[in-house]
């Protein structure tokens, strides 16, 4: 099978399956729907890993081919096509693998849901959209995939459409993403303006020509064109990858079913922004300003969103804030030109975060769809498998030496430390202190859920049991890479030049290379080195605090809460972003719309001008009407008077 056929099957098999499960759901039935989608995604996954293998072993070189012309304007041809290189191959494998796990898991999680077939159709459609996004070879198709994953995310957050909070959350998610897409589209328009093409290869080839060009935006002040384009594109990434201040939709998206929180809102879709910036590295490398901007946004998100995770009681929301924070880490990595480190963390995070979400889902099944950790506790003896895998996931998240998360996070912290870009100092402190925060909320979650007193009601307690194998199997399959994938791949992915065909880094900025030369010898060495470094001690401190407060002295957290009431309130209000948006942006838009409608449309245009002119004409004709009474004697009288006036005029 040649590469092209291979890629076509990878991308379109899930689409076909989605159509079958969605349009003929009633005919194929529940078993039919999950069989066909799992088969399709399974095939995609196997073929994707084969492609990845070909790149790892050096058999394959970058594939770039158009499928068809979407629209052609002179020398600007907008195509639909695939660009598959090492970066794409990694993304394809991660996406299809996590998607496959989630498909299997869903059989158990959604088994009583009336929308079973529809759910499988959506997640398969999502897989297709995400693949189109990462496999695209041009900006138009990128935007297609970008918005298509947003559409499926919208449909899935609102999957339980009777739930008022769910349909509020899905509208919010779509709208916030649209704000990001607004920037993204302007960025794409800027790319066409600057490079005269939307094709990646052509754009990257022409990138150096644009280096000195400027554009006047406010008056005569000249801005670097490439900076404007990069920041506009990154605004799109801020929406999709939930970076402050466009992060507000992600915590609310937890209203959707848990499998999609794992697939879409943790492992894949939200990393689209990270992928996009990495793909655009030839452009971003040309703008120090844009990269500093990226770094600072990421640093803010990484630290401050992690803090909110500490005060949340909903098990899924804790993990959601953790996702925000980890996406912030990836964004910081982008900002210091450590693109490969960002993708590395994206990959390890996809495994352990999907594991955490699916594990949380397993807990939620056992708890009869209660998600409040205050009502949990002591679950370890009822659900041993879930307990173990959640510990594995949390250790990876907290960066325990040797786990996958340790490698990827340490690399980001070290890379930030090495960078001398504007803002790197601040970013370094943010990602460093973030380690403490991460450990704190991770172990808090474990203790509140699996350890301590059993706080659930008796009815729930009687029914507590481990989830069925369709749920636990994906957990185990995700736990394995969560432990070992970092150790196995750090060397080839970061320091072996694996992604050199996809990522461009200026030699002066190449912190990952520097790291590889002076600070890395082998994974084992790196691990030992890591156990003597600051991040590890911070993580230990977080672990210690969590153990003390939530395991040893359960009453202490209330005392702390009271002592730090103002801080607690700020965190519970999530820094007021939601309140501000709802009151001023949503409310303001509605007020403005109403004002324009009532005053301008109804009163001014319709009332004064349109109906006003008809009233004017009515008034004039009312004045003139008596002159045409229709009575002959009136006319005769006027005539006689007229004649008399005329005659007298002539006579005298």
């Amino acid at each position, binding site marked *: 099978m040649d590469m092209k056929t291979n890629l076509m099957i990878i991308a379109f098999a899930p689409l076909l399956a989605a159509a079958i499960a969605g349009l003929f759901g009633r005919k194929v039935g529940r078993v039919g729907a999950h069989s066909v989608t799992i088969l399709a995604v399974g095939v995609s996954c196997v073929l994707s890993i084969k492609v990845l293998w070909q790149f790892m072993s050096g058999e394959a070189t970058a594939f770039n081919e158009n499928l*068809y*012309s*979407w*629209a*052609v*304007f*002179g020398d*600007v041809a907008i195509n639909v096509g695939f660009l598959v290189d090492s970066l794409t191959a990694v993304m394809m494998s991660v996406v299809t693998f996590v998607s496959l796990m989630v498909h299997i898991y869903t059989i158990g999680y959604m088994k009583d849901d009336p929308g079973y077939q529809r759910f499988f159709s959506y997640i398969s459609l999502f897989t297709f959209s995400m693949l189109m996004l990462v496999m695209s070879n041009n900006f*138009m198709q990128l*935007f*297609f995939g*970008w*918005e*298509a994953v947003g*559409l499926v995310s*919208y*449909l899935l957050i*609102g999957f339980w*459409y*009777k739930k*008022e909070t769910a*349909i*509020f959350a899905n*509208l919010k998610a*779509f*709208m916030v993403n*649209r*704000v990001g*897409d*607004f920037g993204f*589209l*302007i960025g*794409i*328009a*800027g790319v*066409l*303006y600057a490079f005269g093409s939307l094709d990646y290869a052509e754009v990257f080839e022409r990138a150096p020509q644009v280096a000195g060009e400027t*554009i006047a*935006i406010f008056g005569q002040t000249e801005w670097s064109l490439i900076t*404007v384009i990069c920041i506009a594109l990154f605004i799109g990434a801020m929406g999709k990858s939930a970076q402050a201040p466009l992060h507000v939709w992600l915590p609310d998206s937890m209203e959707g079913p848990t499998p999609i929180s794992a697939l879409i809102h943790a492992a894949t879709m939200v990393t689209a922004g990270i992928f996009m910036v990495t793909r655009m590295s030839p452009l971003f490398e040309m703008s120090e300003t844009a990269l500093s901007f990226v770094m600072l946004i990421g640093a803010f998100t990484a630290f401050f969103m992690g803090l909110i995770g500490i005060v949340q009681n909903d098990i899924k929301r804790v993990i959601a804030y953790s996702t925000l924070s980890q996406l912030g880490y990836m964004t910081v990595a982008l900002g210091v030109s450590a693109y490969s480190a960002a993708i590395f963390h994206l990959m390890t995070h996809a495994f352990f975060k999907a594991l955490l979400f699916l594990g949380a889902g397993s807990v939620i099944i056992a708890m009869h769809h209660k998600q409040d950790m205050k009502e949990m506790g002591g679950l370890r003896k009822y659900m041993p498998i879930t307990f173990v895998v959640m510990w594995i996931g949390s250790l990876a998240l907290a960066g325990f030496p040797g786990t996958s998360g340790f490698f990827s996070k340490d690399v980001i912290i070290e890379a930030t430390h090495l960078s001398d870009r504007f803002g790197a100092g601040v970013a370094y402190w943010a990602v460093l202190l973030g380690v403490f925060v991460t450990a704190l909320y991770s172990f808090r979650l474990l203790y509140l859920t699996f350890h301590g007193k059993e706080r659930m009601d008796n009815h729930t307690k009687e029914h507590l049991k481990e989830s069925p194998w369709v749920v636990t199997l994906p957990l185990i399959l995700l736990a394995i890479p969560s432990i070992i994938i970092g150790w196995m791949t750090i060397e080839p992915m970061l320091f072996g030049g694996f992604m050199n065909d996809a990522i461009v880094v200026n030699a002066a900025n190449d912190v990952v290379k520097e790291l590889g030369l002076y600070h890395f010898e082998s994974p084992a060495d790196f691990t030992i080195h890591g156990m003597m470094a600051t991040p590890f001690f911070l993580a230990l401190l977080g672990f210690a605090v969590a153990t003390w407060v939530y395991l040893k002295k359960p009453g202490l957290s209330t005392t702390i809460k009271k002592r730090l009431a103002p801080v607690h309130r700020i965190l519970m209000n999530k820094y007021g972003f939601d309140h501000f948006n709802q009151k001023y942006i949503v409310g303001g*838009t*509605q007020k*403005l*719309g*109403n004002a*324009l*409608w009532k005053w*301008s*449309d109804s009163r001014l*245009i*319709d009332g004064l*001008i*349109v109906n006003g002119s*008809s009233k004017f004409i009515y008034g004039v004709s009312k004045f003139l009407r008596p002159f045409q009474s229709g009575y002959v004697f009136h006319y005769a009288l006027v005539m006689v008077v007229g004649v008399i006036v005329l005659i007298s005029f002539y006579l005298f």
Partner: protein
Amino acid sequence: MFEQSLLSVLIWLPMIGGLLLLALGQQRAGMVKFLALALSVATFLLSIPLWTQFDGGSAALQFVEKVVWIDALNIHYHLGVNGIAMPLVILTTVITVLIVLSAWRVIDKHVHQYMAAMLILEGMLIGVFSAHDALLFYLFFEAMLIPMFIIIGVWGGPNRVYATIKFFLYTFLGSVLMLIGLIYLYMQSGTWNLTELAALPLTMQQQTWLFFAFFIAFAVKIPMFPVHTWLPDAHVEAPTGGSVVLAAIMLKVGGYGFIRFSLPILPDASQEFTWLLITLSLIAVIYIGLVAIVQKDMKKLIAYSSISHMGFVTLGIFLVFMLMRTDGNSDMALTGAVIQMVSHGFISAAMFLCVGVLYDRLHTRMIRDYGGVINTMPWFGAFFVFFAMANSGLPGTSGFVGEFMVILASFQANFWIAFSAAITLILGAAYSLWMIKRVVFGSITNEAVESMQDVNSREFFILAVLAVFVLVLGVWPEPLVEVMRASVQQVIEHVSVSKVI
């Protein structure tokens, strides 16, 4: 079979057929419906050769017919389509079939007259898009007001008299000014032929006066801010079929008029007033988008959304003047404008038909009377969500294509134009999806919604056909781009040469 006179057949078959239906009368309602369907389907089938036999490589007028009509005034019965008009003709024949079907069980009163009005209107619309003689164009342009007036006035809602008068006076005011302009042009040149008029040299002053005469006519039709207020009222009062034809096709006459009259005949004045047209277009996109968000009546909301979408048509058309001198992609802008017209034809038709489906069941268009419709009408809900997404410009649907092209091209003219135009991404999603949230999603809000039946096979068919068009055009617009490429190029080349004496 009719190759020599295909356009005539397309114009006169529905018109004469419509008159025939009138003769059949209300008693034979069943037969009237089938005959109307047969006529509209026949017209559609006959229009297919326009597409298949069209020579996309040529900008020349095709399927030309020319006979002297009134010799003394040099008026000809002169028909022909180029790559811009042809898709609009086919849009008309497709939509009419769906309108006839949509009326099947809905219109009880004077069904023969309703069908006749629709078919006659179809003929006139095809006439507008294929007339190459200015006076013939004007005739169709004016005459189509009559069936539309009747459709709203007879089958409309409670406030239909106000709406029809407003509609008629607004549009009539515009077209009278155009008539004066056309007569002036005739006196200058002695011809009504559009090609000859395009070649007629005119001073800047002449062009300016004529430009505003045409501008008012087409701006009212499209409609542009600030002469748009007739449209929401007309839509609210019109029956579903009336709204569909109004939004899907009649609005396009305005955009078509700009491309066919203002640009080629008055290129210098068009260039001069580009700033005005672009400003008004952007006001349409933003201001009207904001107004759409707060509407409580679904039809009004979609009407405002139409005006906002038409802003992209005028924006794309007039961007040509900003781009052709800077070597920008002016072809992308103009093509985007035409694609936006075709796409909006499908999407607005679908949106109004969706509201029609709801209205037929509960007899209200108010958003607050609905809620949780998807619980009782899952298929309908799926369609409505799909079309709302298309309306908000989701890639993969036709709603994306035109807006994407126009926004991309506008950046080449000016950053702020692109910035303002791209705001539609936010506003379009806001008004479309907020309506969907309140109408389709949620739990069932009242007993009336509880009793609603999902779409029947006739309604399903209509919506499915539109969905296919929306998807195909969204996934693969190149065939449509290709058909109009030469004609778009010709318009741009023509307007880039000054014709001031």
